[in-house]
């Protein structure tokens, strides 16, 4: 039987219905609908933000010659590819990046599992503590670790030689291992942030099934838990790999002193006078290519399988009773918190309280002078605190707004361009901060934005928007579209639906994204260093300036900055609604 017969008697005779349409072409009206228009604009803004530094970088990479006499050429590429030092830098960066990514994935996944799924004592505390290294920032972390593990001078080495009669250079932070260690420690929170949500939402029966069918604890983790976290893990790993590979200050502090070449320090060298921006941009282009490659590979890999782990019925979050293993997980947690938070903070505090740091706390040098200088006497430091706060609050707010709209487009939109946009919008993750700063400098120097906070703000948003978009997208993905549709069907317009349904539901992700942007903006340096002007210095710029003279003051500023960030974070945790956590 065909549809014709199925239409039945009731609808047999059709009379022309009154036409109540607007008369406009359907596609035109579609484009003007707010749910298309507003996210669309956000995406266009995002593309514009990507396009300018991207184009600047690409164009600059294709220009060679002396400053002022640049000509289009592929020389940058050919000379780069003939440079052996480039290849060894590439190799070392790949090794450190991969090792750091693997290690931070291990830590991030394990810690998230411990906090979300086990009965390890004190896990609600660890939920906060695991994120503190994120506030310390890798650079401050690297510096702190040099105070801890520099040969012959680090606190740990000194302790070993003093109390254990060991050699004074047992630990050497100035090595590839040191770079990996610090990167892993301080990028772990990224993975943790990406993984903890899915971990909380995973159906524990999937693990139970493995246990019952003969897999011991470790085999279960290997065969079930870890693979199921792959999508989130991949997102986190991608961010860690790309940003850690582009981060210059950690290798500069830890690898360069021992003449270990890396890509980010090579880029840093290239932009030092006498500078070679062409070659730096060329490396930037390659890094972007790698970013895109990884993003596409991730997408391709994930699209082959389904990772939906939330099964509605019969699902009840359960914690694993670890028994005696509780102490093992507790030990791992303590180890991480000790390495990532406690020890670096102790080192920083010691240094910040010393007028002269001699490698061991000495009562004779104790002083509060560094804090006094930073907090009350340094115009620069105080101005920088204010500027950073303004940029961070404003930037994080704008970033979350754009990120929300972009994720809405990426997750809910119908456009065919969605997948391409997803890759395009994540491009800035692969642009080294200083190159991106240069791009914006070239672009905006003729505008009134030059030497204002706005130019910094724009660069920050351009660079880190993908992080917000990724985080919010993940949450939006987890929330069924039917919650919105039922609001529409019940009479709410799109705007009302977004306000009353979508935003409250994704609030945890919004808060997380805001926090992430806020923190990053407070401490970002690479993109700022060329863009700050007189009166628009940020905290990181102040740290660099202070770092030329007195590291005690830098340590004091770092302590202040960290306390400020952690306080902001605690405030958020307290006010955060726990509806979706349960």
């Amino acid at each position, binding site marked *: 039987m065909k549809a014709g017969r199925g239409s039945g008697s009731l609808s047999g005779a059709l009379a022309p219905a009154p036409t109540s349409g607007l008369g406009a072409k359907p596609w035109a009206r579609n484009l003007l609908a707010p749910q298309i228009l507003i996210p669309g604009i956000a995406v266009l803004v995002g593309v514009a933000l990507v396009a300018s530094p991207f184009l600047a970088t690409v164009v600059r990479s294709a220009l060679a010659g002396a400053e002022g006499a640049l000509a289009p050429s592929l020389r940058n590429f050919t000379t780069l590819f003939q440079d052996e030092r480039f290849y060894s830098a590439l190799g070392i960066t790949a090794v450190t990046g991969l090792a750091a990514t693997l290690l931070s994935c291990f830590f991030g996944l394990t810690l998230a599992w411990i906090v979300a799924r086990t009965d390890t004592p004190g896990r609600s505390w660890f939920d906060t503590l695991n994120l503190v290294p994120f506030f310390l920032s890798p650079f401050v972390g690297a510096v702190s670790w040099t105070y801890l593990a520099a040969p012959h001078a680090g606190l740990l080495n000194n302790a070993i030689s003093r109390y254990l009669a060991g050699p004074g250079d047992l630990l050497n932070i100035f090595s590839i291992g040191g770079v990996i260690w610090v990167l892993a420690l301080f990028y772990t929170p990224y993975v943790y942030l990406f993984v903890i949500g899915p971990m909380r939402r995973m159906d524990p029966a999937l693990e139970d099934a493995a246990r019952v069918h003969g897999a011991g604890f470790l085999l279960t983790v290997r065969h079930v838990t870890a693979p199921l976290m792959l999508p989130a893990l991949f997102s986190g790993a991608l961010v860690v790999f790309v940003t850690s590979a582009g981060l210059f200050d950690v290798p500069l502090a830890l690898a360069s002193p021992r003449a270990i070449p890396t890509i980010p320090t090579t880029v840093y060298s290239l932009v030092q006078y006498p500078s070679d921006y062409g070659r730096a941009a060329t490396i930037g282009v390659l890094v972007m290519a790698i970013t895109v490659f990884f993003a596409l590979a991730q997408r391709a890999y994930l699209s082959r399988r389904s990772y939906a782990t939330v099964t*509605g019925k019969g699902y009840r979050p359960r914690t694993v009773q670890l028994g005696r293993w509780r102490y093992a997980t507790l030990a791992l947690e303590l180890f991480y918190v000790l390495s990532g938070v406690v020890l670096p903070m102790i080192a920083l505090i010691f240094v910040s309280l010393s007028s002269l740091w001699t490698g061991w706390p000495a009562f004779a040098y104790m002083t509060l002078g560094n804090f006094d200088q930073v907090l009350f006497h340094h115009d620069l430091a105080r101005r920088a605190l204010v500027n950073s706060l303004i940029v961070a609050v404003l930037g994080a707010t704008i970033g979350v707004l754009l990120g929300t709209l972009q994720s809405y487009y990426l997750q809910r939109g119908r456009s065919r361009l969605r997948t391409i946009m997803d890759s395009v919008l994540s491009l800035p993750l692969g642009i080294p901060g200083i190159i991106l700063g240069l791009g914006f400098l070239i672009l905006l120097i003729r505008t009134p934005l030059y030497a204002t906070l706005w130019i910094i703000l724009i660069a920050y948003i351009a660079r880190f928007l993908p992080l917000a978009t990724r985080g919010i997208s993940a949450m939006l993905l987890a929330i069924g579209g039917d919650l919105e549709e039922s609001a529409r069907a019940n009479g709410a317009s799109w705007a009302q639906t977004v306000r009353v349904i979508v935003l409250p539901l994704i609030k945890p992700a919004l808060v997380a994204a805001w926090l992430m942007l806020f923190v990053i903006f407070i401490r970002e340096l690479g993109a700022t260093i060329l863009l700050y002007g007189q009166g628009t210095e940020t905290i990181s710029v102040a740290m660099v300036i202070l770092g030329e003279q007195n590291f005690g003051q830098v340590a004091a500023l770092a302590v202040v900055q960290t306390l400020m960030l952690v306080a902001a974070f605690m405030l958020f945790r307290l006010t955060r609604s726990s509806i979706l956590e349960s």
Partner: protein
Amino acid sequence: MKSDNASGRDGTHTFVEVTALRKNFDGTLALQGVSFGVARGTTVSLLGPSGCGKTTVLRSIAGLETPDAGRVRISDTVVFDSDGGINLAPEVRQVGMVFQSYAVWPHMTVAENVGFPLKIRRVPAAEIESRIADVLALVGLEGLGARPATNLSGGQQQRVALARAIIHEPRLVLFDEPLSNLDAKLRDQMRTELKLLQNRLGFTAIYVTHDQEEALALSDNVVVMNHGLVEGMAAPRELFARPTTPFVANFLGFDNMFEGTVAWIGDAGTGDSSPSVSGGAGIPIGVTVGEDVTLRCFWRDGAQLARGAPVILAFRSERVTLGSPGGKDEPGSNRYEGSVEACVYLGTCQDYLIEAGSMRVRAVGPGDSTFGRGERVAFSIRPEDCCVFSGGQSLGLKGLTEE
């Protein structure tokens, strides 16, 4: 209600009219031209297997999906017309909808969920409150208004979704498998409540389900869908008694289906000289199933039928009568013997799987019947209980059993 003049203007009595809807999802033809109508105040069920396009139809009516072609009219408003370029936004279509997943908003209390449609319509707060209380009482959730919506059991959440869909007294309520997530007991209960509610409020309803009992229990008309097409549309009793296609038959519980050939037509059978039995308006025919068994049944389709033509024979397991073997062979009763292959005790009844030659017949016996596994048993099917379809239609059946 607005719709009062709809019938006058259109010359029909349909309140909702869906015409030739087509929808293509990246190559999946979800709808291939679906048309049906719903009379005012009645319930139409869309029934069909998973993936046949039921939800897509419903979403197209609600405005949540934009079909590629077709027309949807609700009351006297054309809400969608691909030719006229009309596509009203969901919020102006003024319908209520209950989602398969409930779609109860987890960040709101029960009262906030239920009061949402009124709040959106800027009804005064005091009135909202009293109407929430009324409608919660109606669905049996008195006093639970202040609870977070996620603290409810599945059945209660379903009622919240229902209350939300009817609080603004929509002219049309759409239900997308609202009961499929409930366990059997609760499902029965909610079914009854839904029916009572509709009687009381008198809204028009379109009800999507893949459960035949639900469709039969709740609706005035059933539209059976398959692969994006309407396979049949009729009132429940008609549909249940005389399914029009093998697909519909199978879907409506004709759980014994066999391919066979026509052995004889009319009273003058060849091998079997059984006397004529008045079987409604059909011609008695014989259908050979497997190698040896020929069943007597009636051909009700007006179409010509030739001897030896391939047909499909179908009957329900509940219509199979069981008895001890060796009894007398009543003429025209299709009585056979076989052995019990499996038997499942279900309390009020027992399910049997009986092997008789090349046929495997499902049968239902009373709860206290005592045929054991491997035992010989006699079974008979009345010719009136058999449905015969011409064999060309077996395609639909194939698509179904594959699932």
